[in-house]
């Protein structure tokens, strides 16, 4: 794996300003779903390699637990669906993959 993009715990923000307000007001809404993109060099390691994993779960209706550990202590955790798995061949380069995971429910940072 070479890139992880979209790691974010994000909440919706709602406009709450009323006529009588002299400054704009905001309310925090619900937590939004995150879209995580994972990229790397294509690897055909059986069972645990990225091709075996993502080709097996893409389009599946069962959520998978995703944990991204930042520094050995802090981590993001969420349940996710794999909505896309791409294999990319570029001239003179190693074959690459890109998988898209969307969160279902809360994203926690611990």
């Amino acid at each position: 794996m070479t890139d992880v993009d979209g790691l974010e715990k994000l909440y919706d923000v709602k406009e709450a300003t009323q006529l009588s307000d002299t400054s704009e007001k905001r309310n925090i809404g619900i937590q939004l779903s995150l879209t995580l993109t994972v990229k790397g060099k294509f690897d055909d390691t059986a069972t645990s390699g990225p091709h075996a994993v993502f080709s097996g779960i893409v389009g599946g209706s069962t959520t998978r637990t995703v944990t991204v550990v930042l520094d050995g202590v802090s981590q993001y955790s969420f349940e996710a669906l794999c909505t896309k798995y791409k294999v990319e061949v570029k001239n003179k380069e190693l074959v690459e993959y890109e998988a898209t995971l969307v969160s279902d429910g809360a994203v926690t940072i611990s």
Partner: protein
Amino acid sequence: MAKILSNNCRLYLDAYDLTIGGQEISLSKIKEAKDPTTVNDTAEKRLMGAVVDAEFDFSGLFDDDSTGAFKGLKALVGSDTARLLSLHLGTAIDAHAILAQFKVSSVKNGVKHGELLPVSGVFAHDALAAGKSAEYGRVLYPKTTVTVSTNGGGLNNAASSASGAYWAYHVIAWSATGGNAKWTVALQESSNDGGGDPYAAKDGPVDITAVGATLRTVAGTIEQYTRLALVLDAVSGSITIVSTLVRL
């Protein structure tokens, strides 16, 4: 843990070898997630949708080879017939492969001073079957030209499988003269690579009398080993063929 260089990859669309001229290829399997979040939820929810899709992007260099990318896209563009696509991530039997089907909606060229002429295409996915899009399998037979009856090497699946398979082959070129003036192709199986259990036809033989691509749906249990079997049913001839197997 094996990485793959792009120069080991091959791409076939119908009767054409898009590797000839190809420079950038991507093939994706996609299913959209739906939003079932309701007013009492504190975090957005997602449910997987019901419709699977695929995307294919291709660009490369103009090449006047009669079976290459430009000639292929030029021949197929605008046709409402879905074309079989095999992306091989290696040139050996058992290399990973992806099978899908697309219609060609555009072929594009350009001219830029001092540069090689480019070519690219736009493709519309059309499913192999209900609920299928880009399906993951293996190279059954790499692109080879033969002039006599030939059996390919055994493709080892580590075990038999019970849910059938998609067996696809692309005939890039062929000729047959005299006799019945044809080739035949069959998918054969064996439990031990022909050791004590001789290979026998699981599907076919199918007559080959033209270039093009064919998708065969094979039902039931398939033994651990499979191979492609080519028979020249003529006095003389030649065939260039490549095949993909996707166990379901």
